[in-house]
């Protein structure tokens, strides 16, 4: 029996009716058509489905869509500034070769966005702790670490700060 759901996704208000057992990740992918958020496991280990819920990183497979009632959701599609261009983290992942197959990348970008909003100048250890909920099988993480460092430096130097770029609506 579908229940009403009202929330904001990437700055746009939505009203839908969804089954109570529908996971947030499936709501985003199948109802909103935002397929950038990926499913890589069924036990909340891989982090490919990470999105921001009111600015906090959440594995969207661990949450029912109805639990996001009234929340502001940001997915990878909403990461870049509205006027075009790329978020500094996207730029850094591109420049530093922080992705290969790209399947885990949206989750890393969202988790890293939350990390940098909280800690604009993380050490390597802090980056590791901040991203330990995300698995990548291609890169060996070396260039992801580099990319997060590079993005942090760019953002400290005045590139669009993560917090304002991602928490839309």
């Amino acid at each position, binding site marked *: 029996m579908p229940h009403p759901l009202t929330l904001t996704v990437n700055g746009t208000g939505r009203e839908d009716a969804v089954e109570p057992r529908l996971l947030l990740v499936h709501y985003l992918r199948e109802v909103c058509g935002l*397929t950038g958020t990926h*499913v890589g*496991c069924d036990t909340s280990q891989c982090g490919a489905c990470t999105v921001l819920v009111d600015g906090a990183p959440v594995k969207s497979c661990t949450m029912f869509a109805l639990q996001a009632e009234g929340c502001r959701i940001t997915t*990878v599609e909403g990461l870049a500034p509205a006027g075009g261009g790329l978020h500094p983290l996207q730029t850094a992942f591109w420049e530093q070769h922080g*992705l290969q*197959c790209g399947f885990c990348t949206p989750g890393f970008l969202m988790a890293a966005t939350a990390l940098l909003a909280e800690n604009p100048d993380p050490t390597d250890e802090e980056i590791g702790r901040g991203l330990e909920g995300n698995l*990548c099988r291609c890169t*060996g993480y070396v260039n992801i670490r580099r990319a997060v460092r590079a993005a942090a430096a760019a953002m400290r130097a005045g590139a669009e700060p993560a917090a304002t770029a991602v928490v839309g609506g």
Partner: protein
Amino acid sequence: MAVSQMIGARIQRREDPRLITGHGRFIEDRTLPGMVHLAVVRSPHPHARIVSIDTAAAGAAPGVLAVLTAKEFHTVLSGTMPVAPAFAPDKKYVPPRFPIAEQEVCFQGEPVAVVVASERALAADAVDLVHVEYEPLPAIVDPEAAMHPGSVKAHTDGPDNIGWDTTFAGGDIEAAFAKAEVRVKERILQQRLAPTSMETRGVLAQYSPFDERLTIWLGSQNPHFIRFFVSMSMGMPESAVRVVAEDVGGGFGGKISPYPEDYLVPAAAKLLGRPVRWIETRTESIQTTTHGRGQVFEAEVAARRDGTLLGLRLTQVLDLGAYHGTFGAFQACAGLMAGGVYRWEAVEARSVGVLTNKVPTDPYRGAGRPEATHVCERMVDRLAQELGMDPAELRRRNFAREFPFTNNFGLVYDSGNYDGTLDRALELADYPALRERQAEARRAGRLVGIGISTWVEICGFGPAAPTAGATGGIALVESAQVRVLPTGSASVFVGTQAQGQGHDTTFAQIVADTLGMPLETIELRHGDTAEGTGFGCGTYGSRSLSVGGMAVQQAAVKVREKARQLAAHLLEADPDDLVFEQGRFAVQGSPATGKSIQEVALAAYGGSLPSGMEHGLEAVSYFDPSNWVWPFGAHVCLVEVDPETGAVRIEQYVGVDDCGTVINPMIVEGQVQGGVAQAIAQALYEEVVYDGESGQLLTGTLLDYLVPTMNEIPDMTLDRTVTPSPVNPLGVKGIGEAGTIAATPAVINAVCDALSPLGIHHVDMPASPDRLWRLMQEARP
């Protein structure tokens, strides 16, 4: 020769803009109108007889369109799933395999029925309502036990469990051992691993009854092979089947061979007249996607006291699982490569493939070559320890130095400079300082170890003659089509299939240099069997650049030479008098007179062609390399083992590799980093574990199967030497598997070195805290 601009340049990847913004096109992102969802009913038993299947309750469940079993699939599918000869052509027992079990299930997770429903969740719900009555049978889990006559049989109607038993003899092994002044012997395990691409498998199929056409979308490393096999099973012309792989979220060997679902989903689409999609869950993936490794080695080395290597004798017992993986016998190449970078008087390798009641094994990144390198490099270290010789010195004393170098089995290493990579790695690691640091740590009672691995691999599959035999008929050559359009941009079609390797970028770099065209005007297309040349063999075995990239280069050269003829006609000059530079043909001596490649392209579709020249500007090339290519390198690792917990910490990691000419150094470095990480994962963390009695999979989720996080993988110091291959015009080799081949023994040699003061000489993988703690407890007085 034109000055190269793009080859060797660190070009940012053209794949990335869509992937970093959430606009990738992975299999689960593709939907079709009217699409329905398939879920698989799988055996919970490793071995059982199917007594009956009751589908009534599932068939009546909400949203369910059909419940299908072997009976229904036999009306659409025929034959047995393919098994390639590979490196064990003389197989003894190959159990037939229909994509879905009918009378007997032989591993946990084997398909028994499928449910098709209007929604994925409803299909999953109905799976639980299919009632299958099983009569459990004894399961055989341990491959060594399975070898014994009288063992429980993995298939009740099989003669025994021996899939193959092949011995490769390279020289007079008895004579070599007769000269031995010292011998070392070791039993070395290669645990089962799950490839674990972050995107699981998935298949979407649509059958059009009106024109009898089938389209299959799937995550695959080789769509042409999938078309080849599925069209045969469905009794359809190969040309009536189109297979499409778009973005593929990693493969690592797990997306090479055809799987049951690759047949069942298209068959269900045909039976139901609806587009049908199946997406594998992670639990299904660990349970049913082919595993890699799963081998036990008994190895013995004979040597002189001065460190001269004489003979290497080994036995590989390979756990096949319940069926032969399509390319599972590829891993038998471990024996042929076990001599590594060294000169031996003789090497003898016996490979035994053994059936067990587990998921089949098949290539996983490196496939046979990591195993060969691990055995060889462990044994060389064991010998160094026995002789009290520095392991770097022992290696140098035995390196192959004259190239081409023919190994004991007649394989010809194309080019190499093993001293060069080892010297550079030891220099970067500051080896003498590391040894001093180790001595100091040992005086303080700390367990610090240094591991060295010097490696070589066979890759770049082709060539045609040996590989056609190995696949059962299809030569692993590669093809490309380069087509320049009237306005001067180019479409390039290839038969390889990237899963993160960056071919859109590197292959376009090759075309850009060959045709002098801007990179952004070159479109690289792969993954759609309806486009390009007749066949492509896909991406695995570090073959894409040295075979596929060379087909691209050769096709581009053909286009350039046709353009030269046309330009000469337009310029009223002799073709031999034209100079081609920066995308422009100019008359030698009068550089102002010329035609750009774009102007020539337009003319190729116009009305002023020389007589006898056909219209258009395009070419097809098939590249058949004359030999394999043989990348190599040296890795050095420093570890510290916690004496209380057994935890291993990698303190320093250095890798120096040589893959010949480099097209894009950024991508090469990324491939090595990722490969090293997967090797560290095998050395320290990952293992697929089945309960030895019940045959139940104990590591069925990513909570139990320990894929490392960022915290486990250190930064690496990487460098390269460049020794071009003589096998292809660009001098390239492969680099996709290098890190995985190189790093596992470097890490384990370091761990063994760290524990050697306790009298521990060998550690099996994964060198987990639990395993090391136990070894240390046993070793301590």
